[in-house]
């Protein structure tokens, strides 16, 4: 049983080789090459994993409850168990037994910048996580789908990948295919590729990502079939976020307990929030940037202790907990703990990427809403009618609201439109519309008076009496 409140003492950092506040100075960051990675304890977890059966590795990860760091917070170990078994008598990669890993490095959620560090400075940690996942799930090819704008990061990944191929982590003579694989799992060749995106937010959605890797337009797929059964190229596929995979190194090196010793239990009877989390802070604070904390850190503590407080000594007004899709925390929710309970406790969609954006008292929330809705209008893939048409309409309404050109009925309509889209009510294919729904709805609900202040007066019926 872990702790229930944040006490600020992480010992096992994901960023141990990437100096990151509060435990290091970001001016000291540099690219960690293979030799340095190995010299600082790298690829030990992979060798330990290979000494165990794939099932044992999956069980260990399942026990650690590594909740997905890509936004949805689904436990990785559980996700892996949805895969069908490798066909009898075949090894992964044999014809008819191809199985894939899609690594989500798209990181396009506004305000989110965490996977970037992991790839820019310590890519071998990600590659090790990938190799562990491939062993545990029997996957013979991994595709790292990286956001197109991450050019430097893609180059670094390619460089690390070349080293890894040379050192026998991947490729024909990979560890998975050697005597190091002594845990009784099948031996097979594991390959890894970097695939650069072309700059669409929607390609971070897991099934759109699969389409994009296949070279198609990034339209999210309808489910079922689920990717675990029919994913990339119609084969069983695991999709995980970069940070999620990086956490595997600690779990397989020091055991699930070491991971679980960090982070917090749920206080509302939900699943726990174990481990540390990279948190990219942006907005009106003195020192924005990417930090690493245990899950459960209260937002106020994060801002006041570590980010030097609100910028120019202003007062806190609102915050987005982790990417605009999550909705907004109101002025009275400054104490919200950044863990996976946040959705239910504070009426937002969830923790998301745990990269908060903080707004000070001078912020015009109507303008924030307008800005966010412009993002969704621009990024909707255009497949589902409610999202395609609704996001454009919402933006137009919000433009009128910001311009002071709207009436009360327009505000009600805005709210109604926002509520009519999303896969939570079931009206769309993917979660992008939910993000739009939550962002708009929570801003309007939590800051309604600001919207109302911008409305034009309603017409009054006047009766002119003739006496």
């Amino acid at each position, binding site marked *: 049983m872990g702790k229930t409140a944040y006490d600020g003492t992480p010992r096992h950092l994901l960023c141990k080789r990437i100096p990151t506040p509060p435990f290091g100075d970001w001016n000291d960051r540099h690219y960690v090459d293979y030799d340095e990675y190995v010299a600082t304890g790298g690829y030990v977890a992979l060798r330990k994993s290979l000494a165990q059966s794939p099932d044992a590795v999956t069980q260990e990860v399942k026990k650690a409850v590594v909740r997905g760091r890509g936004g949805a917070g689904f436990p990785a170990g559980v996700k892996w168990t949805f895969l069908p078994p490798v066909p009898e008598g075949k090894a992964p990669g044999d014809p008819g037994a191809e199985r894939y890993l899609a690594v989500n490095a798209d990181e396009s959620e506004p305000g989110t910048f965490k996977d970037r560090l992991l790839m820019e400075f310590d890519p071998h940690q990600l590659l090790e996580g990938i190799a562990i996942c491939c062993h545990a799930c029997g996957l013979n090819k991994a595709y790292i789908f990286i956001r197109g704008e991450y050019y430097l990061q893609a180059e670094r990944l390619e460089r690390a990948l070349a080293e890894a191929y040379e050192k026998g982590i991947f490729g024909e003579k990979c560890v998975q295919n050697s005597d190091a694989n002594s845990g009784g799992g099948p031996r097979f060749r594991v390959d890894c590729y970097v695939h650069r995106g072309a700059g669409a937010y929607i390609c971070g959605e897991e099934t759109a990502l699969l389409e994009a890797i296949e070279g198609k337009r990034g339209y999210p797929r*309808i489910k079922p079939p689920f990717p675990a059964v029919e994913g990339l190229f119609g084969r069983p596929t695991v999709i995980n976020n970069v940070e999620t995979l990086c956490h595997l190194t600690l779990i397989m090196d020091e055991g699930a307990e070491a991971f679980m010793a960090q982070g917090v239990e749920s206080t509302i009877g939900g699943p726990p929030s174990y481990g540390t989390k990279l948190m990219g802070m942006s907005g009106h604070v003195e020192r924005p940037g990417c930090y690493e904390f245990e899950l459960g850190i209260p937002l106020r503590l994060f801002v006041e202790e570590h980010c030097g407080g609100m910028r120019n000594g202003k007062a806190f007004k609102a915050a987005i907990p982790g990417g605009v899709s999550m909705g907004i925390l109101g002025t009275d929710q400054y104490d919200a703990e950044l863990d996976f309970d946040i959705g239910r406790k504070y009426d937002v969609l969830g923790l998301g990427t745990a990269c908060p954006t903080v707004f000070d008292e001078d912020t015009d929330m109507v303008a924030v809403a307008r800005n966010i809705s412009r993002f969704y209008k621009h990024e909707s893939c255009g497949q589902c009618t409610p999202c395609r048409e609704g996001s454009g309409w919402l933006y137009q309404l919000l433009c009128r609201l910001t311009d002071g050109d709207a009436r009360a009925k327009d505000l009600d309509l805005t709210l109604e439109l926002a509520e009519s889209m999303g896969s939570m009510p079931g009206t769309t294919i993917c979660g992008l519309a939910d993000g739009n729904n939550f962002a708009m709805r929570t801003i309007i609900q939590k800051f309604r008076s600001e919207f109302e202040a911008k409305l034009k007066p309603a017409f009054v019926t006047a009766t002119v009496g003739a006496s």
Partner: protein
Amino acid sequence: MPTITINGVACEFTKGQMILQVAHANGLDIPSYCYHDGLTIVASCRICLGEAMAPNPRNEGKLEPYMGGKLFPTCQTAAVDGMVVNTDSTKAVANQKAVMEYLLINHPLDCPVCDQSGECLLQDYSFSYGRGASRFEEQKVKQPKKDVGPNILLYSDRCILCTRCVRFTREVTGTSELYVNGRGNKSEIDVFPGVALDNPLASNVIDLCPVGALLDKEFLFAQRVWFLRSTPSIDGITASGDNIWIEHNEGKVYRVKPRENLAINKWWITDEVRYGWKHVHAEHRLRSPMRRKHGALIEDDYKRAYEDTIAGLKKAVGGGKRLALLVSPNLTCEEAYALGTLAKLIDPQAVFGVGPVPFVGEDQTFPPGAAADDAKAFTVRAEKAPNARGVQRVLGAIGQMVLDADAFLARVKEPDIGAIVATGNYREDWATAEVLGAIDRAPGGGESRFVVLLDTHGTPLIDHADVVIPGATWTEKAGTFENAEKVLQAFEQAIPVIELAKTEGQIALDLIAEFHGTPGLADHRASVVIVDEQPGQVPQAVEVVAPRSRLFNAADIRTEMADRYPGLSAFATDVVLPSVDAEKVEGVEMVEL
């Protein structure tokens, strides 16, 4: 059989069927735009959403809210035994209204000038599921009109992005000309620069498009669809036997559309069949009988044409010579029978032949590379005549031997042939040098013989005939065609026969009556034509009489065929009649216009 309850109606289904499919099969309406029976399911328009209760096997099969009570697409959710689905619940109806409102906000609402108006799913669903008024006060997204192919225009601003057209070019033709360009509400359907939407099946996207975005250049502004009458028919252009609708008004064909037949053409037709009917209204249609008088062909009435024909034929055969009958592969089985019967009456040893069968290239299968026997593939036939097999079958059953066109043309050059009855009815000029060389009153300057020509269009062959009687295209008659797969399919008459022409079947019956000397063919139709008697005189209106014997009724002829010839019994049992459910919209009164 498993059962599912949809909107209160218990429906049986087979495993694997989607809820929407079950509903449609049971005559229940669930609105749908992106779903089409012939395409993959994308579930993107979101108008078909419903709510359900489903039995939970882990809870003694008790009914529990399906998907946590969320709305889900009925087009993409397989029916489950015992499930109770509602697309008429408050939530589902609210979604239908929302989707309709969304679809219309950027739609130009230009129904008064839109060709689709009257057969548009946006109109229909606005009426049945929409909210009536729009709350949209902003600027609409404007999109261009595009010329996407030789036959097709795209009015992008009317498009609802159901992607049916895109899927068609990817899945059915495999040619992938269309794609979605852009994102969000700026998405538009487009072709790649320099690559037109031009394949043998291309124009099917016009029918697939649920709204007026993809339009037929031919039909553009030609007719409001509510003036059109539809007659179920069969492809009269190629041997594939595609099921079609002929849509016409006041005796004029306006367009041809596919009629669903899963065994033959599925939901599609080729552009060739769609646009191949132009010869029906061609300038050079034959409109009046002609006979040779003092060596020259003159237009005359039916009475004299019939008398000349029978007299000429009797004389030739009476002189100990043979009669040769050439039946065009464009005629119906019933007509082949009537003509064959006539020929045998005059000369029991008449020589039978099937007219030339045009071939263009080779059979083409779509998507390219699909095996021809692939149930999903669509084959474009190289054989460009509808009924070569049917004519062969009928003549074979009633005569001794049936020659193919080449053999027939060689045979009629022989001196023992005293008379030829030839039928044309081709879309294109069929009077090739070989035909002209063989079907002649005195081939190669040899012995003269009597030539009767039944044809629809004027060709040089007319000059080779003693009597010419104008025939009718397949749109103007009822009958049966046998397609390349040997399926016998009947069709109905869509438009009246042009002016004084008659169907070849009717002509054959009339001539039989004339042969028997049946007293007075009934003067069934009188028509007034203006005759310029002599140059310089005032034109005079003259009543021309078209005598007719027993009415040529295709169904009666089929019965007779089967009764008289055991070899033709298939015509009593195997003919596929057009099954047509007249679509009725409840609560809407139909008025005759």
